[in-house]
């Protein structure tokens, strides 16, 4: 019995074609999908699931991804039939429960970010970024300030930042960072001017440290007529403690599937709500939810926000994800939200110290870690040829997911480690012990690392072959 669903095929007689659809519009060849029995389907996919690492089964310190616990109650609430069976074109009076939940979430996200208004509709962080920079563009355009074609982006930024800026029609200008992790202010000032629409930053930055001169940066950018975009990817580091709105940012997105504990689902769905200062409110993507004077809720439309950047999906966004984020925020409340960044930072700083203690080198040893931090293993590479990739693969053998590697690209042979606040000291201590052992292995038996992983369903996969062969669909 192979491990392919295509082998579970039973051949039953097919149903007849409908008489009232012309033959030339009908399928010409039988649909060649397998016909497994229900148990075969259940068994196949259940067993596949067991081949995954996940938060529910492993420590998953993937930097920049905020792999925190995804509360199951949030899932249970999002799939209640009263939500799950609701058609998007249901008139507002028949979906007051959902609209109220979404409106509350807008309000709470505005409170958390220190912004004036929120639209929940972007489907993921990157779509939130696109919406955000599109609003910057619409803002300048509305003022008749047409020459601002450039978007400044730190070299260390997530790849989505430049990609989103380009999709919104901007030219991208990269700004370097200094050795201490802060932005190069001189380079910034050099680029600022009448052709600059704004800057996209995340703070703490992707280097795992807080941009200390953020107020100064905001002052310079605003003075030059630009706007500041906040990439919410690292919001977990400051949640409940520092509001991007108070740092001087004009617009931002939030990754609800990071900071607000909705599941990553093996690659989505996310939700990339955007939040803006008052002056950008007219440009928010549609729809949002508004509360009428008489206390009922409804979707907004083009009539409410005629200068909106428009719609990013056919309906109101990833509602099911929003429901989960709402449940998470409602569960935590003010006090719980405040604890998130505190314990995320405690776990990161503790882990950093402990890993330094067992011999690893911090990329920014003089800096306080935010919710994540960078190690570099160039010393190992020089000593034995062992690379960050090898350390990562060996970790898998111990039932620990690898950190992010080779990002940010500024730091050679780096590991970006984000433990999140939901992991216990015992888990972190075990990670340190495993990392210490791996370091020892790297020095004493490097071939063990180079051949890792050893204990997973497959060994290190040939990714070059994958791209060359390009077998991307099962063919009969």
């Amino acid at each position, binding site marked *: 019995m192979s491990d392919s669903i295509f082998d579970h095929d039973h051949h039953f007689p097919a149903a007849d074609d409908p008489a009232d659809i012309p033959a030339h519009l009908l399928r010409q060849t039988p649909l060649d999908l397998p016909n497994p029995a229900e148990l075969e389907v259940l068994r196949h996919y259940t067993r596949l699931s067991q081949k995954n690492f996940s938060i529910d089964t492993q420590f998953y310190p993937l930097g920049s991804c905020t792999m925190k616990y995804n509360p199951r109650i949030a899932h249970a*609430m999002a799939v209640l039939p009263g939500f799950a069976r609701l058609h998007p074109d249901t008139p507002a*009076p028949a979906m007051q429960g959902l609209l109220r939940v979404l409106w509350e979430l807008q309000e709470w996200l505005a409170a958390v970010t220190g912004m004036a208004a929120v639209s929940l509709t972007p489907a993921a962080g990157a779509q939130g970024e696109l919406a955000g920079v599109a609003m910057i563009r619409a803002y300048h355009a509305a003022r008749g300030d047409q020459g601002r074609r450039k978007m400044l982006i730190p070299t260390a930024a997530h790849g989505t930042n430049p990609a989103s800026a380009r999709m919104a029609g901007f030219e991208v200008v990269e700004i370097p960072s200094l050795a201490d992790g802060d932005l190069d202010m001189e380079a910034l000032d050099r680029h600022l001017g009448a052709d600059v629409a704004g800057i996209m930053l995340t703070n703490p930055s992707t280097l795992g440290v807080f941009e200390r001169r953020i107020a100064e940066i905001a002052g310079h950018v605003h003075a030059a007529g630009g706007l500041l975009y906040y990439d919410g990817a690292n919001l977990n580091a*400051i949640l409940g403690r520092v509001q991007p709105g108070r740092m001087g940012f004009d617009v931002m997105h939030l990754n609800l599937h990071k900071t607000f*504990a909705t599941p990553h689902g093996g690659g989505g769905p996310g939700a990339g709500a955007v939040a803006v200062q008052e002056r950008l409110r007219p440009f928010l993507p549609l729809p949002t939810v508004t509360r009428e004077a008489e206390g009922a809720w409804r979707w907004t439309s083009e009539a409410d926000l005629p200068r909106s950047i428009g719609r*990013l999906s056919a309906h109101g966004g990833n509602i099911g994800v929003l429901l989960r984020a709402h449940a998470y925020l409602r569960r935590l409340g003010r006090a719980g939200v405040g604890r998130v960044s505190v314990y995320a930072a405690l776990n990161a700083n503790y882990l950093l110290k402990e890993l330094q203690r067992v011999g690893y080198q911090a990329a920014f040893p003089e800096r306080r870690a935010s919710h994540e931090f960078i190690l570099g293993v160039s010393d190992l590479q020089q000593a034995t040829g062992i690379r960050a990739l090898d350390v990562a693969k060996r970790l898998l053998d111990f039932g620990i997911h690898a950190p992010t590697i080779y990002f940010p690209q500024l730091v050679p042979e780096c590991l970006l480690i984000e433990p999140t606040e939901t992991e216990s000291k015992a888990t972190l201590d075990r990670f340190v012990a495993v990392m210490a052992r791996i370091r020892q292995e790297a020095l004493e038996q490097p071939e063990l690392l180079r051949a890792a992983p050893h204990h997973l369903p497959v060994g290190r996969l040939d990714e070059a072959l994958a791209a060359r062969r*390009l077998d*991307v669909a099962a063919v009969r």
Partner: protein
Amino acid sequence: MPYIPHDAAETAAMLAAVGIQRLDQLFDEIPAALQAADMALPEGLSEMALQRELEHRALDNAPLRCFAGAGAYAHHIPAIVWDIASRGEFYSAYTPYQPEASQGTLQVLYEYQSFITRLTGLEVSNASLYDGASGLAEACLMALRIQGGEPAILVPEHLLPSWRRVLDSMLGLQRIRLRSVPYDPDTGTLRLPGDAGGAAALIIPQINGFGVLEAVDALTDWAHAHGLLAIAVVNPLALALLKAPGEWGARGADMAVGEGQPLGIPLTGGGPYFGFLACRKAHVRQLPGRLVAKTVDGQGREGFCLTLQAREQHIRRGKATSNICTNQGLMVTAATIHMAALGGHGLRRTALTCHQRASRLRKHLAALPEVRLPYAGPFFHEFVLRLPRPASAVRDALLGHGILAGVPLADSGLGEAGDLLVCATELLEEADLRAYRDALAAVLETV
């Protein structure tokens, strides 16, 4: 502390290891003026209280018999689909960047890609986009990358309005011109323009915004004859019955894109759904989004990994095919299980049942004295009713009968005031169809 494990002793030990005394000191690099804002958030709830509150909210959404479609469809989802998809190993995993630790998700995506290629008759499918509408925008961008030249796309006027608005938003940012192609008001089908006007692609919606089936062979051939790419917009369930885009016309459509929601995704007020996008192998390097390939490990064991990542933003940054990063992994997991659970035969049976139910409903409703059917052509499971009163008023009145009657088209600028787009799926039994007819008859007498 919800979801935070630390007790006081552990916190103290960790602070000591960090070399500080108080938790606040963890933030000592952050200027004090920026810190500790007071936020207008409510107090937290216990899980019990949260559940009670949200169950009440859920009950504030009326349960209705659903005759609405317009891009989102009420279907039966086998119990196993979400039982498996919700397993922690799928639910709480990240994008499979470490393939050895993610073979479950990767194999599911490979199977998904395989299923989509078979449904669409095209060679390559990506691993999903956000939804059908934004997926169509990505398909248009892809067509422009392939074609070069003038940035223009031919868009049928009777594309679903909700999709057209997304094209306007997303393509407008890059100053891409969307040239509307009108429909024939007698048939509700596409009327070809005289020339292609230098556009890169023609969008061919099968099914269109009126639920009517288009002459896809002729449209595809016309596009190709005029040097355009043919972008098929399709309902994946309908493809169990209808001609696959890869078989349209002499050469087949070049891309197929659609809303994946009918494949096991609950309605949930509009999302999360997922968009699928399939293309010819020749165009794979212009395809946005993730792609999974089969390969081998050092011992020759088969395995799966992400491939052609050089197209993507995390490698190629500003020059990527798209900014998309997180997509709709869990939805695709559910859709893959859904397709396997129904199987080829089950998908076809479901599609046939939808068609039969819609045909019966159409007959029932057409028999009412004041109801007209403006379009006579073949359809799948959706059709337009032309009512003698504003469709939205009739729709609102039918809510009182526990019926969501359909989607009024004129609200979004398509068709006439009385046009109601009505859908029937396998979920509706004969009694439901009759209940609709009787309620509509009653409402038309009073509204």
